[in-house]
């Protein structure tokens, strides 16, 4: 894939903002929101990685056309 590192960095930035806003929304207390943010961010990245792996596997096994 072309420019894969750049895409991964951009995705990490977007994930940072999504996780940050979800922490703001889910935790009414600032300290708990900040403390829980790293775990929330890692869960988001990990979940997306699993999802991407499933999609790639499905593409390779079921939908590859080349």
């Amino acid at each position, binding site marked *: 894939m072309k420019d894969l590192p*750049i*895409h991964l960095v*951009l995705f990490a*930035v*977007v994930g*940072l*903002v*999504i996780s*940050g*806003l*979800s922490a*703001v*929304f889910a935790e*009414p*207390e*600032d300290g708990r*929101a900040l403390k829980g943010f790293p775990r929330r961010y890692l869960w988001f990245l990990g979940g997306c990685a699993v999802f991407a792996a499933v999609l790639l596997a499905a593409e390779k096994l079921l939908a590859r056309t080349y």
Partner: protein
Amino acid sequence: MSASRNDSSRGGADFAAILTWFVPGAGHVYLGRPLFGLIAFLIVEGLYFLGVRLTGGRLFEFLEPDLQGPLAGALSPEVGNLGAMVWHMRTYAFGPGVPRPWPPHMHLGSWLTAASGLLNACLMVRVHFEARRSARADARGSEAWLQVLAGALVPGLGHVLQKRVARGIAVFVLLVGLFALGTILAGGSNLDRERHFYYWAGQFLLGAPVMLLEALHGHARVTRDIAYVDAGLGMVCLAGLLNVLALLDVHGHAEDAGAGSNPLAVRAAPDGAKGAA
């Protein structure tokens, strides 16, 4: 408060909000506040019709022919003022289908119609809150809608008005930072409603930063290939949509504060504990 009273006040609040969605101010008339309703109607519809006048009613001509359909406006900010938008689409539709020069204040006009939709959405928040508040003896304060409006104008400002400064700064940095990065990646091509009608609708929810940058950028032509334009457009749209999450946080906090209790205690407690409190 009994469950049945809760249900009836909730039903009245929903009805008032839906009335406001179709006719700005009608919900307040329904609640017995005709003067406020009339003023709200004049402001919200005044914004919309000024926008229609400046654009010559041609806003939806921004859309490519394959996007022009009866539900084309459903994802535009104007949908917040549904009655006016339906009238607009029925009256002007998508134009004659032949290229014509845009009116001189086309973009300003489109900002005004979009702002009218957003303002009416905040009015719906207010009327819904007031309808429920009238049924609650312990309630106080109705600044929720103003805080939501402030957060819609500047990300994080609603939190700052609630004296949650650190949270407001974090929201501002995250969202405006994402918007700035997306704009750089898109080469500024996102700052034009004609070019990206629906992405623009998403980023519009970020408020003043978008308007300022768009005014400064001046709808410049795209003269080169932009490598990461898709990533940039996704980012700016996402930044606006995530601001809705921040606005929900602002509104939830304001409602809890209006209920006369400690918002942090109420929202952090489990459901059973809430009922006991």
